[in-house]
């Protein structure tokens, strides 16, 4: 893991970025030991998952804006050529249509894999997601369901995205019973989680950290594998403080953990992976061990999903906690362009919070 981080550091410097993104999977899970893995980036891992999904289920479809030629992030490269234009196709520019169409297609027993070009544009589809997809099974008394629906969308900071190419809207969806929200941290995770999402019997919103599309590179097994949903993963063990995050933010948190270690603070880092329904048990067990919790996400702090994690853990672990739960998140502003670095929850903001929490 350390060597891959070094590699990213060099790459980051050469790209003049202040962030050092990209992350790799921990080796705890033996099912992931590559039988035949190749070093690929995130969009290639997503692409592999989609190839496998369409190959293994003749009733799986991929559709959205510009997916046919390969997509604006190349996640759908080669699919139309291999599976045909009836299974992989462009849609008109209309998110409410894309998701509504996907709901109907899924309701007929198909795997409908819809792409929203940027998470920033998912809002026109909010009605179809919240009022329709999320309630489809429940309101019909389980006569109907659209469990075959998976909505993929790139999310998060990219260095120059501004208001409308950087948003992290996961909190809006975490408030909706009936759907699942899943966010991978790395290529290997993304492939396994996406396949699980596609094959899950519930409608799922899958946010892909766009910053990592090119920059995160790791060994990804070439075979068909799935990773469990609603199971958080302890990717770094520690004893003084628990850190919880998801997606690209984990790599920032990892750096903060490394720096904290130099000051003798042992950090436990957890990747939540599935935001709803989320794995409270793993986080609770960790906080019982450490007595401290810090949550970090790019989305604005007020009403962000960190608030839910904080409230739930305080309910469960109040007497065990040595300090208030810390949230290091984006500011309560639209995502700015020139001020991006000021807005984001950076490594040093997290490190400062680790120290003040431990020294509370």
């Amino acid at each position, binding site marked *: 893991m350390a060597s891959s981080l070094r590699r990213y550091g060099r790459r980051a410097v050469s790209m003049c970025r202040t962030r050092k993104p990209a992350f790799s999977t921990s080796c705890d899970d033996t099912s992931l030991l590559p039988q035949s893995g190749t070093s690929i980036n995130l969009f290639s891992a997503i692409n592999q998952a989609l190839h496998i999904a369409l190959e293994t289920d003749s009733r799986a479809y991929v559709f959205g804006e510009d997916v046919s030629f390969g997509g604006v992030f190349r996640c759908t490269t080669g699919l139309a050529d291999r599976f045909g234009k009836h299974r992989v196709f462009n849609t*008109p520019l209309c998110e409410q249509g894309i998701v509504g169409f996907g709901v109907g297609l899924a309701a*007929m027993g198909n795997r409908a894999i819809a792409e929203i070009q940027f998470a920033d544009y998912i809002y026109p589809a909010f009605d179809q997601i919240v009022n329709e997809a999320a309630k489809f099974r429940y309101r019909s008394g389980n*006569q109907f369901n659209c469990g075959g629906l998976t909505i993929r969308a790139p999310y998060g900071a990219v260095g120059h995205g501004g208001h409308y190419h950087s948003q992290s809207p996961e909190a809006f969806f975490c408030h909706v019973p009936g759907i699942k929200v899943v966010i991978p941290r790395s290529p290997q995770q993304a492939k396994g989680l996406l396949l699980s999402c596609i094959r899950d019997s519930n409608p799922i919103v899958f946010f892909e950290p766009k910053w990592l599309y090119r920059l995160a590179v790791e060994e990804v097994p070439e075979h068909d594998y799935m990773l469990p949903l609603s199971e958080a993963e302890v990717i770094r063990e520690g004893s003084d403080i628990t850190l919880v995050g998801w997606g690209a933010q984990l790599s920032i948190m990892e750096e903060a953990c490394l720096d904290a270690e130099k000051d003798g603070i042992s950090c436990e880092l957890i990747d939540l992976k599935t935001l709803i329904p989320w794995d409270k048990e793993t986080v609770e067990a960790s906080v019982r061990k450490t007595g401290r919790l810090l949550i970090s996400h790019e989305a604005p702090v007020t009403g962000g999903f960190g608030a839910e994690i904080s409230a739930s853990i305080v309910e469960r672990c109040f007497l065990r906690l040595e300090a208030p739960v810390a949230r290091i998140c984006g500011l309560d502003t639209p995502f700015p362009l020139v001020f991006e670095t000021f807005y984001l929850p950076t490594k040093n903001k997290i490190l400062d919070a680790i120290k003040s929490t431990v020294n509370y």
Partner: protein
Amino acid sequence: MAIWFTRSKNIAHYLNLKRYVGVSAGIVLLNHTSLNSSLQSSTIPLSRDNRRTPPAATCFGSSATLFSLRRFESTEAEKRLYDYEDEYQALDFPGGKVAFTSEMQFISESAEKRVPCYRVLDDHGQLVMGSSFEQVSKEAAVKMYGNMVTLQIMDTIFYEAQRQGRISFYVTSLGEEAINIASAAALTADDIILPQYREPGILLWRGFTLQEFANQCFGNEADYGKGRQMPIHYGSRKHNFFTISSPIATQLPQAVGAAYSLKMDKKDACVVTYFGDGGSSEGDFHASLNFAAVMEAPVIFICRNNGWAISTPILEQFRSDGVVVKGQAYGIRSIRVDGNDALAVYSAVHTAREMAISEQRPILVEALTYRVGHHSTSDDSTKYRPADEIEYWKMARNPVNRFRKWVEKNGWWSDKDESELRSNVRKQVEVGKLFICLLNPFSSGQLSKFSLTCYTSMQLLQAIQVAEKMEKPPLVDLFTDVYDLPPSNLLEQERLLKETIKRHPQDYPSDVPV
């Protein structure tokens, strides 16, 4: 890009006739009726000739020449233009060749005439001379009439039940019985229905029982929806009727997705989805028509244009010529039909279905009608429209009576032996027993509106009594089906809730088993 010029008079004239008249923007008032003629060049025979609807295969080879000649003859303005000898050029742009003109002309915001409305029966149930329609068998016609009457009675009794506080809410379909029943009759059981909420007649036609309707309205343990939604939010998988949801027009893009599935599976079936005039203003309407055209999905969009979206009349809903003209904007074949003429509705939907399946394309059907009832039991429509207008449509333009007259004229319906039946019914009621099976007018062969009305009313009252007494679904159904399997947070919440109920049982209704 190929750009070529026609300078000679002869070639220009030839080209005008053959190709470019239809697409030229050089006409001040683009005659929409003739544009529609071109699309409906196959359907023109329906209104003018004495023959039945021709089979789909021969209908739709619209000839550009024929179309342009018709247009060429239609208006003075067009004639003058050709005398001018304007220079016509054809230009290639992404999206196809288009003629252009040096005269700046705007297409008018409306056509000279509104799109005509297809009807077959006049207001007195008489077949219009020379009308063309799909023949309906005696059995089908009687079933259609019976269902229309049943729907009326069902609506009346459930509405009253809500007024009495026995159910919380109800929505009637009064005035729209022909759209409901005739459209359902024109489809097969394999066609997938995605309704709005004013189409229970389709379920009725497909065999949903009065007891099943009542169960959903009471949200009891036999409700297929497990008591989760308000009354009238029916859904039935076995009848291929997707569960109703309250948000308007959300079913429309879903219908396109479902139709795409049928297309991929090469099924001999289509999707039929319904919405109102109000629903056509929603974004989902525009999204779905556009998607349907691009995906070439076998879906029929049926608009029940009943004049009102709660209290909002047509003029405050849109300024187009209704909904039918919007079809062409998306490249969809469309028809306007008299929604109170059951035969016309039946014919149009039957033909639309054939087209949708054989040609794998969407069709838009606008059925003009009137919402006789209030929007729902939460509405009093006399607050925003005159009572005599409602009365007029209820009596003089009643679709059920109109169809009955036609059925009667065919000798398929009679009110014979009515007095005997009346006394039979009276006896049964006096004795206090409901010999429903003996009264069944379909088995007794003595079909009359009276007997049908009594039979249905009593069935319905009994269904309501049974539904009312039944227990509600058990508490566990609050937590199931949110996901395929309940996640840990729901299991925890169920546990905590049960503890709360033990402590405060008086806070909770007694008809929900814990």
